């Protein structure tokens, strides 16, 4: 599906067809529906917003209204091949705990987040303002993004938590990865994508 956002297309390519997927913060179910219809994936989406829940139900998805900050205690260990979370980590109250939870219930984790090390963020900070970018459109006082990080920060956390990174890609809002992004991911990448598992 070409209409799929570039980052979601990359995730879809990472996921082995026919596997079991848990999508944390699945939103309107775009990714999960794509995986179900085109990759023969089975699984569930977790979401907190009632309008999104209704949209997911409309799409025929299994969706469970859940507050991710309360953890994933409804799910048993290793019950999924992949646990996916797109652009929600930075809005979590305890991102470190949730990462561990992802690898408790899933064999592999896939995560995307807006890179706070992107040059436009750095530039705005240099000018003395909290960054407002296409990936981070909210103002400091009304942003849901309470735990922003850079690629380096995230990788440090993974190291501390014994999480093994299998794959990393950075993209911007419109294009897939270019040469500059590959050379200087923490400066040029707008959105970071990681695939990881337990060490």
């Amino acid at each position: 599906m070409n209409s799929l956002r570039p980052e979601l297309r990359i995730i879809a390519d990472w996921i082995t067809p026919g596997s079991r997927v848990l999508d944390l913060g699945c939103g309107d179910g775009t990714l999960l529906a794509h995986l179900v219809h085109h990759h023969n994936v089975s699984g569930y989406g977790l979401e907190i917003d009632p309008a999104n829940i209704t949209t997911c139900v409309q799409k025929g998805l299994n969706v469970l209204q859940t507050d991710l900050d309360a953890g994933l205690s409804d799910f048993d260990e290793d019950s999924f091949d992949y646990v996916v979370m797109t652009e929600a980590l930075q809005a979590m109250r305890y991102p470190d705990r949730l990462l561990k939870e992802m690898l408790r219930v899933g064999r592999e984790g896939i995560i995307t987040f807006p890179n706070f090390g992107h040059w436009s963020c750095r530039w705005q900070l240099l000018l003395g303002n909290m960054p407002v970018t296409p990936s981070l459109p909210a103002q400091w006082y009304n942003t849901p993004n309470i735990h922003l990080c850079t690629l380096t920060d995230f990788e440090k956390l993974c190291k501390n938590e014994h999480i093994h990174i299998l794959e990393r890609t950075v993209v911007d809002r419109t294009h897939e990865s270019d040469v500059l992004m590959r050379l200087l991911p923490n400066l040029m990448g707008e959105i970071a994508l990681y695939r990881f598992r337990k060490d």
Partner: protein
Amino acid sequence: MAREFPDDSVGLVKSRTQHFSEPLELDSGACLPHYDLIYETYGELNATHSNAILICHALSSDHHAAGYNSPDDRKPGWWEVCIGPGKPIDTNRFFVVCSNNLGGCKGSTGPMSPHPETGTPYGPDFPIVTVRDWVRSQARLADALGIQQWAAVIGGSLGGMQALQWAMDFPDRLRHSVVIAAAPRLSAQNIAFNEVARQAIMSDPEFFNGRFYEHDTIPRRGLMLARMLGHITYLSDDAMRAKFGRELREGKPRFGFDVEFEVESYLRYQGKAFVDRFDANTYLLMTKALDYFDPAKDFEDDLSRALANVQARFMVIAFTSDWRFAPDRSREIVKALLDGDKEVSYAEVVAHQGHDAFLMPIPNYINVFSAYTNLINVDAET
């Protein structure tokens, strides 16, 4: 003068009664030699009989789920909010069946029906019935109506438990189960409330050990108290505050024990109105059926195992302010279904109305309910 009913109502409806002459073995070991089920239907059964939905009612409701029984009826059926043309249970698409549970007092065989041996009302001799017994009796109704497989079985509260039981007992006879404001079994607190309600009825001097019909009376005070207690558990603290606050009917205290606060007046009104429309023996039976409901019991308290054979797809809905069957109780059902990799969606609707929210037109509830039943229709047509 012909009365105009709202466009989104099924309008004037008539109940029908199905007689079953084959004995029905009950969980208690007792046996009903024959029985009647009274039911209503809305909408048209399609040619392949694949669009039928069974509605299961709650503790004190009945088979009159939608529409009006007479042009003079002030109020429509108990789930008018959700059943009718264009509503979540859309009668333009579905053939909807709702029957009064066995042991009821609205036309299905129950304590007020004549005992086959004596010809006088069963009264306290009517056997205790369980949710499983109800499901079994309804399966025969499905047979009689030519419905091999329900498109969905749907219910709220005790009715939700019935929808769950259906999926366990007849896995291939329903495609969807919608379980609303329910629980996988009652808590000790739930049972405690039921016990107080039963004691209120049984300690009424007019109860006569359940043989009050013979004395041409009813345990009015006891049944009224039971209903008042029930109503407290159906509403949330917030809903009561919003509805009544601490308003005094006469504006100032009178320092007596007559009705003074609006909430007292409401409870007494609800209690009194209930006495005229409900049978005390039925109330006792229904609360017992609730207490006994515990499908996990036969599986070492493992609900996942109890649900291992279900084939239906599930929609579970709970309401945030429901403290009778709180969202956590619904999540127990969801978790057990997840353990078995079953198809399930779960919505936790923000609502201040308490347990009664499942009867209310709350937009987020109606939207997600409709979204789900729209899917059911797709299945029915393929």
